[in-house]
């Protein structure tokens, strides 16, 4: 930054603290971990402030740091948590099959119209809440793939899982998310 003033870190907590915490919480599924990630982000931001070029709004610059903290946390947490990736037939639980693998009954209908719901601002609070409530192990894999766009190959490395098992866990996350939305979004 040449002629621009450096942003004031004293204002970061009040201006961006809650935004960054929400961002971390939905990804980490753990309040204490999300608070720590925000704190580490601010400290790393202060340390790297001379490298801030002023082109990106400070909130997005801090969010970029936070993304790395989130992935670091998941990498560490994956050594401590066991991800249940057993298939146990649940992957096909929406279907009943008859002979030759032909489906016998329809998967249950959505209880609301996703097209309408996605247009409504209030829906996204429910969506946020449902993503936050995903069980930790399932939720962390979901965060890496769906929210951070990390490839299955890299998730396998981070979580020490086989590719098919990653997809089992992701499918489970999507199914749980769908059930939670159906339960908590009652408007149509």
């Amino acid at each position, binding site marked *: 930054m040449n002629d621009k003033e450096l942003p004031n*870190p*004293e204002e*970061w*907590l009040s201006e961006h*603290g*809650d*935004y960054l*915490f*929400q*961002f971390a*919480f*939905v990804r980490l599924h753990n309040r204490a971990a999300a*608070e720590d990630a*925000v*704190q580490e982000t*601010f*400290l790393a931001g*202060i*340390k790297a402030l001379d490298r801030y070029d002023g082109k990106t709004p400070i*909130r997005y610059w801090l969010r970029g740091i936070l993304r790395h903290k989130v992935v670091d946390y998941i990498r560490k947490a994956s050594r401590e948590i066991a991800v249940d990736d057993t298939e146990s037939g649940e*992957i*096909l639980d*929406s*279907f009943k*099959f008859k002979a*030759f*693998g*032909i*489906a016998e*009954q*329809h*998967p249950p*209908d*959505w209880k609301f119209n*996703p097209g309408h719901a*996605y247009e409504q*601002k209030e829906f*996204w*609070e429910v*969506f*946020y*809440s449902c*993503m*936050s409530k995903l069980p930790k192990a399932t939720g962390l894999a979901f965060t890496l793939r*769906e*929210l951070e766009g990390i490839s299955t190959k890299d998730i396998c490395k981070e979580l020490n899982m086989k590719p*098919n098992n990653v*997809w*089992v866990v992701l*499918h489970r996350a*999507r199914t749980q*998310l*769908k059930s939670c*939305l159906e339960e908590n979004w009652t408007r149509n």
Partner: protein
Amino acid sequence: MIACRQVAKALANHRYYELPWYRRIPMFIHIRLCVMCGKYHQQIVDVQRGVHDYLEHEDAGDIETHVHLSDEAKARIAEAMEQK
């Protein structure tokens, strides 16, 4: 013709558009012809679209939730920042 069980498993394990073309074509035909698999596929697509739209709203900063930093956490973070 592939069976519904194979379609359901493939959709659970992969994103449709990430499948190689030689698997996507029979899947495409099956999904178009089979009401049940078509519906199942649509539900998966709806959830993925929800996540995509959520990220756009998050990026724009217009997700309003009741999730906030606690006062204790704010005090702790402020103290850590002062010491830096």
